[in-house]
């Protein structure tokens, strides 16, 4: 089982994700530079948080055109697991791998704090280790996490049960309290909160770790050990 952490100029949670996969999940992991044009037998790709290209223009807009993204799209279309965290989520939206867009937080400030999430869907490769309805404590850290989608899109998300996490107390104005969604096929997850920041007890919460553990289990069950 091999994890890859994609690195854009300006990514800044790449080392954190790497650390959690390697030291906590104890699985093989490699960094992937955004100019790579080949993805070698990875089983799960992590698009980490940060400020790719400084978030200049629009979050994730420039990174979306990095050479690696063509490969990420192919990888996802073949059913590979992709998880975008924070800026990674924004990149996936810009790339069209997930529906919707991000607006600035309603209070117009960057928000860094622990929030509570409700797990809405445990029937994904990323959330099977939670119980449906479970309340978990995971930090957010973003300027633009105010999720937006048009009415039709929202209906679609609901119908297909694509909403995986909702905020218990909405910090940023996100539509329908949405904190994380999957694609229809359920192999691509985007979420604003940072599970890698809550995977060790020293950081006061391990509630994010089940995401990594769910992925590990899923991959194992699908023959990637």
């Amino acid at each position, binding site marked *: 089982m091999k994890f890859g952490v994609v690195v854009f100029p300006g990514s800044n949670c790449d080392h954190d994700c790497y650390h959690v996969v390697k030291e906590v999940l104890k699985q093989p992991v490699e960094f992937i530079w955004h100019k790579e044009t080949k993805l070698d037998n990875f089983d799960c790709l992590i698009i980490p948080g940060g400020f790719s290209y400084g978030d200049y223009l629009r979050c994730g807009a420039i990174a979306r055109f990095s050479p690696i993204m063509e490969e990420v799209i192919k990888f996802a279309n073949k059913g590979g697991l992709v998880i975008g965290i924070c800026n990674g989520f924004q990149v996936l939206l810009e790339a069209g791998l997930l529906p919707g867009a991000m*607006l600035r937080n*309603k209070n117009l400030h960057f928000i860094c704090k622990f929030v509570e999430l409700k797990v809405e869907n445990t029937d994904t490769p990323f959330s099977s280790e939670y119980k449906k309805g479970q309340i978990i404590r995971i930090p957010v850290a973003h300027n633009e996490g105010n999720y*937006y989608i048009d009415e039709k899109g929202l209906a679609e998300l609901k119908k297909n049960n694509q909403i995986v996490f909702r905020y218990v107390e909405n910090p940023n104005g996100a539509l329908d309290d949405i904190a994380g969604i999957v694609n229809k096929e359920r192999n691509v997850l985007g979420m604003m909160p940072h599970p890698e920041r809550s995977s060790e007890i020293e950081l006061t919460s391990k509630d994010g770790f089940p995401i990594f553990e769910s992925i590990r289990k899923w991959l194992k069950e699908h023959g990637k050990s």
Partner: protein
Amino acid sequence: MFEAAIKITLKKTVADPQGLTVKHALESLGFNSIANVWMGKFIRITLNAKDKTEAEAKVSEMCKKLLSNPIIEDFSFEVSNA
């Protein structure tokens, strides 16, 4: 050489908290006849093209591909000789 003046604005259907905040700030400074404020981006680009039509085509392409996100934003621009 041509110069493009590009305006990127939020779609009418999308809430604009920044505009609202600026409106309140202006009001607290004593400007009290304001109906509405919308915040957007202004991008100026100088570029070479063989004529204005080509320049316009290029700029339109840039807006669609990178400069705006059609889910939440509209764009408009003017091209002039520079």
